[in-house]
């Protein structure tokens, strides 16, 4: 049981690392959103599932409901995060940022 929890948690942390490094490395605003929007969402989902499983160690109605609440956070983030990403892209488009194309310098 602990091993599964650790695996899920570390997978989540791995995707979080990808997100953080991606935000630093990618060349422009639009491509930076790809790691920020996707990797963070999946990392959060995996880490939260791991933690919810760990919380079920001492099984009772209370811990079950707490785990359900943790899952509720994940569901909420899954609805909200793509929307936030979309809103930021929209803001960038309206602010008049031109997308980076191949061969340009990074900004």
């Amino acid at each position: 049981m602990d091993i599964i929890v650790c695996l899920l948690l570390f997978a989540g942390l791995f995707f979080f690392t990808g997100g953080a490094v991606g935000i630093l490395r990618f060349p422009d605003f639009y491509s930076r959103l790809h790691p920020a929007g996707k990797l963070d969402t999946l990392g959060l989902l995996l880490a939260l599932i791991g933690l919810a499983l760990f919380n079920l160690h001492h099984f009772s109605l209370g811990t079950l409901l707490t785990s359900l609440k943790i899952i509720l956070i994940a569901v909420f983030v899954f609805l909200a995060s793509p929307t936030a990403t979309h809103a930021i892209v929209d803001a960038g488009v309206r602010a008049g940022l031109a997308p980076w194309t191949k061969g340009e310098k990074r900004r």
Partner: protein
Amino acid sequence: MDNVFLYSGLYLAFLMLLSLYRPLFGPTVVDRMIGVNAIGSKTTVLLILIGLIFHRVEMFVDIALAYAMLNFLAVLAASRYFQKRKGLYDEALFGKD
């Protein structure tokens, strides 16, 4: 298991430090928004980790839930600023979208 959570939390704090580069030095405001959004999703996990370290998850879950909800609101408001202020509203008026 507590040690695992503690070191995961420390690692998450380190990742937040990395993500904080964009809000601090990001060339445009929109880059800052990306960074803050990324920090927000890490904070949610870190709050639950702290709850597990204290063995009082049922308290910290509420904070994390409120947090996930309101972080979304702040990002939407900040992006709405651009849709309104530097929006291409004159062109939208004449139907060019």
